[in-house]
């Protein structure tokens, strides 16, 4: 089979085409590609929604004494604002909790694992579909149900969950406890929705692992798997083994709220001056352990797919093999293992003793080793290549330093002493957002630009792509870089009025002579008396960047939709001249994916093999001499356009 003859594919597509009713083909589909696209769209909608929540929060932080513009007249909204239209603490807490939840559980994980994993994994291993197509559909619908519940909870009388995305007990147990119908409060619905989302992820993880282990095509041995598939396998295991404890925690908190148990309610708890009506004897720390047992591996669930997408794009666009493929595979496995035994570094200030804290500090520092191996391999992969700076490659290139900053700023947090100072400040926010926002999300954007031609048969606009990339890079840094400074100055992340209280206190401290802090400031001559005030001004830089970032997502949205209709048609099935198996399928791939049984003849990244006529040897070609000359799109991609 030749990879690049378009006309035969059209014919073949007709042969393979089963007439299916619309609802079966696009809505209740069991085809992994349709499900992947469903995941993709749903999660993009949730990402946009989560971003919107954050923009409102940023208004309250930057301009705590001004009314929210545009939204104050909307009835639902104004019910949560105060009389003059300012954001209230309740609204801020609600949006803060839901921003985190939506971004992590409804946005990025489904986009990275659900959408890319579903679409690309079976193609890359040469499988006709996932191992359990109907289960795959079930996981999407469970996910959607969970997402809808989360969304609906905003419109309940109690509003959505307000206890932070971590939902720590006993705060989460007692929030909105005075509502008559406890089940229909946002806080309870959060738990129900989480249970659905977790179930969905578990089913998805079983499906992925099973597919990768059992459905690899002929010749696709373990060390011929593209790195993306490896990352998916490890991600699948992380989800499979780390999510159940959170499900336990959710069930137990649900019992605490609905059945009145006291798993996480200590003896003698008082809520607003009244003794809380529960038997007591529980432990709030237990919740944190169960939560972070998931939530730390979850960090790697967020980052690994993006990192692996970048690992696919870089060799393709540098025309060089992935440097240290095997090392990366082993590193990712070690990473997956270590991810399970580092969780309590989120809990240094819970009063853990030195012995156990030392253990967690050690494992936390250890886990940076495989992370650095991964990122270094990606960096070295670019060394000496003739790089095609097309849009996916731009995002992939930006991913490396952004993830690097996010990772390296995590090191101080790995040690309990600096963590005591930095815990719950903006420093932490900046650290993990650098990993997740300019890191993961850039990786995912790169993936969208990279695989779009395979989905639609058309390229995305390069011009709009550049208009999307450069401002995004600028404003991402505009948002998160100031947070490091603010965080080190001690700004707390939950201050809904952007540190107004802090401003007063700090000016007081610095203004009063002979106080301890003022003396230190004087001696060191580092912190000037109005330093704190200037820190607060950074809020405006951050918020402004956030809103501008939103504006510059518009080119992407336009690009995503109109390129389907007006984008340049691809002239071959392999427009980027890539080597992995997904490019052997017709464009777009039909139900069942491959026209004839695919065979993997070689490793995944054989670019510029010495002695070969072409600069790439696809996995699916047994004789490299048959590979046609470079396709047109590939040639154009050579130049860094615009």
């Amino acid at each position: 089979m030749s990879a690049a003859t378009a006309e035969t594919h059209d014919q073949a597509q007709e042969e393979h085409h089963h007439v299916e009713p619309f609802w079966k083909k696009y809505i209740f589909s069991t085809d992994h590609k349709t499900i992947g696209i469903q995941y993709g769209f749903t999660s993009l909608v949730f990402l946009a929604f989560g971003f919107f929540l954050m923009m409102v929060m940023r208004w309250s932080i930057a301009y705590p004494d001004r009314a929210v513009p545009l939204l104050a007249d909307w009835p639902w909204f104004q019910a949560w604002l105060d009389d003059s239209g300012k954001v209230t603490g309740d609204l801020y807490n609600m949006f803060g909790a839901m921003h985190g939840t939506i971004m992590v559980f409804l946005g990025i994980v489904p986009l990275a694992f659900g959408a890319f994993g579903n679409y690309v994994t079976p193609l890359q291993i040469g499988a006709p579909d996932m191992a359990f197509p109907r289960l795959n559909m079930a996981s999407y619908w469970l996910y959607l149900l969970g997402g809808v519940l989360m969304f609906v909870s905003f419109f309940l009388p109690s509003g959505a969950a307000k206890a932070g995305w971590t939902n720590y007990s006993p705060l989460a147990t007692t929030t909105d406890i005075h509502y008559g119908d406890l089940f229909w409060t946002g806080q309870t619905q959060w738990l129900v929705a989480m249970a659905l989302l977790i179930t969905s992820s578990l089913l998805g993880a079983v499906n992925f692992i099973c597919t990768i282990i059992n459905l690899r095509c002929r010749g696709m041995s373990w060390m011929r798997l593209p790195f993306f598939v490896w990352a998916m396998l490890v991600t699948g295991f992380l989800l499979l083994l780390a999510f159940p404890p959170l499900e336990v925690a959710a069930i137990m908190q649900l019992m605490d709220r609905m059945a009145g148990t006291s798993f996480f309610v200590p003896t003698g708890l008082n809520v607003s001056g009244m003794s809380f009506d529960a038997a007591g004897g529980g432990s709030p720390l237990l919740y944190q352990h169960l939560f972070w047992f998931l939530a730390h591996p979850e960090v790697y669930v967020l980052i690994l797919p993006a990192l692996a997408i970048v690992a696919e794009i870089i060799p393709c666009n540098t025309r060089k093999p992935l440097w240290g493929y095997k090392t990366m595979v082993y590193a990712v496995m070690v990473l997956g293992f270590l991810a399970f035994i580092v969780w309590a570094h989120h809990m240094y200030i819970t009063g853990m003793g030195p012995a156990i804290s030392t253990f967690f500090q050690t494992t936390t520092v250890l886990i940076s080793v495989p992370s650095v191996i991964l990122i270094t391999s990606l960096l070295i992969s670019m060394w000496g290549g003739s790089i095609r700076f097309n849009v996916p490659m731009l995002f992939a290139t930006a991913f490396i330093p952004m993830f690097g900053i996010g990772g390296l700023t995590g090191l101080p947090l790995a040690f309990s002493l600096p963590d005591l100072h930095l815990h719950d400040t903006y420093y932490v926010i900046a650290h993990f957002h650098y990993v997740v926002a300019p890191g993961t999300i850039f990786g995912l954007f790169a993936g969208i630009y990279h695989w779009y031609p395979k989905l639609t048969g058309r390229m995305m606009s390069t011009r709009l792509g550049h208009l999307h990339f450069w401002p995004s890079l600028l404003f991402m840094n505009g948002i998160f870089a100031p947070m490091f400074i603010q965080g080190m100055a001690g700004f707390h992340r939950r201050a809904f009025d952007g540190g107004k209280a802090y401003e007063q206190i700090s000016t007081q401290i610095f203004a009063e002579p002979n106080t301890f802090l003022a003396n230190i400031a004087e001696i060191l001559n580092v912190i000037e008396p109005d330093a704190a005030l200037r820190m607060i001004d950074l809020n405006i830089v951050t918020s402004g960047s956030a809103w501008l970032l939103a504006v510059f997502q518009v080119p992407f949205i336009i690009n995503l939709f109109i390129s389907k209709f007006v984008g340049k048609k691809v002239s071959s099935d392999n427009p980027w001249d890539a080597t992995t198996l997904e490019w052997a399928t017709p464009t777009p791939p039909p139900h069942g994916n491959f026209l004839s049984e695919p065979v993997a003849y070689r490793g995944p990244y054989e670019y510029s093999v010495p002695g070969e006529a072409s600069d790439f040897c696809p996995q699916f070609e047994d004789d490299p001499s048959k590979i046609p000359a470079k396709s047109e799109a590939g040639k154009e991609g050579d130049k860094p356009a615009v």
Partner: protein
Amino acid sequence: MEIPHEVTPRRDTGLYNAKLGVWLFLASEVMLFGGLFSAYIFLRVGIQDGVDNPWPWGLNVHKDFVWLGFINTLVLIASSVGVVFAWVALKERNWKLYQVYMYAVIGCAVIFMCLKGIEYNSKLNHHFGIKLKDNSVMEGELVNKTDRIRFEGATASVSLQGAVPVFIKSIPKGEFPIFKVTEGPGSEEGVEIHSDSELKAWFHKERRAISAKLTEERKRYRAELASGVANPTPVSVSSSAKLTSSEPFVLNANPRKVVLHSDSVVNFKDGSKVEGKLISDDVEFIVHEVDLQLVLPQKQRESIVWDVINDEGAKQQFFEQQDAEYRHLREYYEPRGEVIPEKMLRGHILNLHDVHLGGHHGDDHGDDHHDAVHKSEPKPSAEGAHEEAAHEHEDDHSISVPRDQIKFMGNHGPRYGNYYAIYFTMTALHGLHVIGGALVLLFFTVFGKKLYLKNPEHLANRIEVGGLFWHFVDLIWIFLFPLMYLL
């Protein structure tokens, strides 16, 4: 399109898809129950003596539940054997035998769930505990199975925000009074409300009206602020309303929905309140046992529980029995030259005692004493049932417990303490697994014939996979039985 390895195993992994899938699923189940077991350990180890509720253990606490658990273990083991035999029958292509085994397995699942139901019913409906202010605990039963604050209402105040006020659920069915709106929106027109559905409709209508009004007002306020008015009139929209009943109405309030109550007012936790006259807030209770584990030994004789029970005979009997049990402990520790640990004195011996109140006491005393001494020996529990039956006859004497003496109370449901919480959570989750597994196996039994004729090997695979799940359910119970009932 056909998915490879649906029936035949893949050469290099030796597994067909479904088997690999179910093993992966079981791995996540191991983590699920692993999380619950670690919660069990964490909570149990974390108990602070004398502060938290003690962990109930042993035969004299769990009584005949131990036997139910024991039978359930055997039932589940038998069903596991049934599944493997059904699988072998399929491998031997013996459809009849396969069906016999499968129905036996499902029968076992039904028996298991029935026994579980008996146990839940007994815990939820026939065991109730009251913890008094000084941490002494009375175990027994509520007189009318439910606990209500009885109140005679005259007026109700509600806030026209949020959800429908909870107080309407406390009005007995068919006794809904005629309310007249006396304050708040609708008071000028003299709106009358005749039923709870009318009240809900009125509430929703007025809530919408108020929220619209509030929107308007705030708009005005913001406009004034923006235009630089020096002292803008602040927003004031009252959302409170008062309903007055034409005649006093009965209110049986669930104490868990009430924040505070006094002789003239009941405050519900959602902010609604009813004014009127308190009829009684005492708890009518039948005492079976007194438990003083959380009271310091030297303070046990002055515990308020004796004031509440107000029965000298019962008190005397309690301490006689305690002495007997101390004797038993001394018999164990003194020959070994050890001192009885404080934890033993507090934690275990005073666990449960039978006290008998009122006139029956004198007649039965000798008998009881014998029973008490006997009890200190570990004894087979067939007598447990007899003992409980005995209570039914003797304890028709009830007492009134003043509510302000009560710290916490509840049936032996999940609320009652961490043991009960984890017991109910784990067994209910396990029960759901049993039901789910049984339904899947039932499906294979009833609708398996078509597949059997087409590809018997495929059906055998399905039974193997369903069986793997079933064995796992059995396996979890193997751990639950000793941890929940015996240790």
